[in-house]
């Protein structure tokens, strides 16, 4: 195990930030820590790095206890914080060189590593630029370069794509996968489920300071009752007829729940069961005019919704 956290408890006054938090990350994984804002992801990361005191529990990295003075362990860790943590007064090159220099003292080794990091994040044309001259996306890439230049074995990325344009986001995600391919173990925290689904081999879902479920994305999706979600776009249909047909759909044995809003009907099927053909048959039977029909598999948001009654993002008062 690269990371092994057991029974971690952290309090901020009366607020319980981490509630007997447990986590295990294997070597070579891209491990996603998914949870809404305020769920305790950053607190867990800071405790893991011994940057924050905790009341109870233990943290082991690379099989050794992590303490503030565990400098040998720190040497193998790269950290990329949620906010861009670079010096405004230093150029792109100087910033990467500075942070790399905290780990690598040999100047020529460092020079090669800095150049490699610059090329990895695609900042070759900006090496003499000061951070305030860079766009948001380029700044994020600089932030990542500062955290990975020394070639750490464990890279912790705390929401590195917040407020980043789609193009830069894709570039960052591709970079993370490439770092993992080169041998680094990655811990990736985010509240964007699409990103986590896209790159992570295993995921832990956090809420209120504890892990409520963990596993691969398909394992997590199999933990819930909800299966496929069918959405039918309706064409010029009377409300009374829609309601009648929706009721009929809900009586199908494979359907868990249905909703309608006057222009569309939504039906949720049970896990591993298919309702599409039966639904279409009912629509035809009732002569309901319909346009497009979408059939989606459950997402991690559905997993989170079913487990907590809340959405992952701040859309329903998370």
């Amino acid at each position, binding site marked *: 195990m690269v990371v092994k956290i057991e029974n971690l408890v952290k309090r901020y006054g009366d607020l319980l930030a981490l509630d007997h938090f447990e986590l295990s990350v294997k070597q070579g994984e891209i491990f996603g820590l998914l949870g809404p804002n305020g769920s305790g992801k950053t607190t867990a990361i*800071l405790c893991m*790095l*011994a*940057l*924050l*005191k905790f009341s109870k529990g233990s943290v082991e990295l690379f099989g050794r206890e992590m303490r*503030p*003075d565990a*400098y*040998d362990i*720190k*040497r193998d*860790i790269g*950290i990329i*914080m*949620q*906010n*861009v*943590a*670079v*010096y*405004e*007064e*230093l150029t792109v090159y*100087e910033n990467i060189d*500075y*942070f790399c*220099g*905290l*780990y690598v003292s040999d100047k020529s080794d460092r020079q090669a590593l800095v150049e490699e990091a610059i090329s990895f994040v695609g900042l070759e044309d900006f090496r003499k630029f000061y951070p305030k001259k860079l766009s948001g996306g380029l700044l994020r890439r600089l932030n990542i370069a*500062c*955290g990975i230049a020394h070639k750490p074995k464990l890279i912790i990325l705390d929401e590195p794509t917040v407020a980043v344009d789609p193009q830069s986001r894709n570039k960052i995600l591709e970079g993370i996968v490439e770092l993992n391919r080169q041998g680094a173990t990655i811990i990736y925290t985010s509240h964007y489920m699409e990103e986590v689904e896209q790159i992570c081999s295993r995921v832990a879902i956090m809420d209120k300071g504890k892990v409520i479920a963990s596993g691969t994305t398909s394992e997590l999706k199999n933990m819930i009752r909800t299966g496929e979600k069918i959405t039918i776009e309706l064409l010029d249909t009377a409300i009374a007829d829609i309601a009648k047909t929706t009721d009929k759909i809900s009586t199908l044995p494979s359907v868990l729940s249905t909703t309608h809003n006057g222009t569309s009907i939504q039906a949720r099927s049970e896990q591993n069961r298919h309702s599409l053909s039966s639904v279409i048959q009912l629509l035809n039977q009732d002569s309901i005019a319909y346009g497009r029909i979408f059939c989606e598999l459950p997402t991690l948001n559905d997993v989170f919704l079913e487990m907590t009654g809340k959405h992952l993002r701040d859309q329903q008062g998370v």
Partner: protein
Amino acid sequence: MQVFKACLKIIRHNLPSMMIFLGVFIAFVMMVTLFNPQAEAVDFTASRPRMAIINDDSGQPISDGLEEYLYASATPVEIKSDSDSIQDALFFRDVVYILRIPAGFGESFIAGNDSLKLIRTTLPDSYQGVYSDQLITRYLDAASRYLQTDSSRDLQQTVANIQRDLDLEAEVTLSSHEIDNGFSSMIYYYTFMAYSLTAVMILGVSSIMMAFQQRDIRLRNLSSPVKISSYSMQLVLGNFFFSVIAAIILSLASLVFFQDFADFRRWLLLVLNTLIFAVTMMILSFLLSQFIRSRATQQVAANVVALGTCFISGVFVPQEMLGSSVLAAASFTPTYWYVRAVRMIQHMSTGGSNELTSYTNSLLIQIVFALAFLTVALVISRQRRQSDTV
């Protein structure tokens, strides 16, 4: 030494804003050098008030002697004796003092009868008027003493004696004020340097500390394998190096500006005072930077602290001209003791042990200030660090 090197790079990046304060300083030094090359007088010349004397007692030796003595000590101005001419002469500042010796004044004075008085007209609150009064009093006192003791009553001889006595002057040698070329300008330079040094220290140190105190940068630094003690030591070293280098550069610049200055011993004393002041202000800046979170606050702090302490401590206005309450308040700032030490060096005679002791005391008080600032800064810094991170 990554942290130390980063400190220097941060300073280099912030040099333009510091150069503004140094530019003001250099401009001031140039003005002092150009417009005040002989800033301090090296000899004494008595003031000669413009005086008109209307002697209605002409022919009487005592009165004539007074007129002659006053004209020898003042610049005589002739005016008409009517009331309008006298008022006009005073109004237009043709004269500052008009003395009318009434008829019979001499005889009355000899008789010891003070019923007849000299009629004096002068500008209100004029120092030349006061000085003229002193000249008259001096003559009359001397005359009075001779008349009391000289039984011969030879008035011509008495007046001659008075004149001879009053002509006597003591020889004065300004041993402690040997003004060599450029010394007074050098003193101005080092006095005014307090302003620039304070502003530059606050800007420099707070720039370093603002950069390193950003939460995420601090977390990134603390998660690295650099020992916390080494990290802190490099940070201290960076600030210390900056303050000492700034003080040395400004001190060496004084030799460039005032190349005629030859008193190396006094220059070394000035440099030592500057070094201690720079380090004290560096620590004060470290304390202030616990509260500085933005560039705007930084500029405000630099201006308010530098101008405020310098105004009350005698940088812009000599300490001798400041009120006692202002000086009492100023004595709670290191700037006051820095300026005081500079003034002591200015008035220091060769080998004066008392002055050297006072100078040393001023340095020690600055060091005490530095220790006090450091203690408070460390307590605040520790409390803030403990509030969130390890």
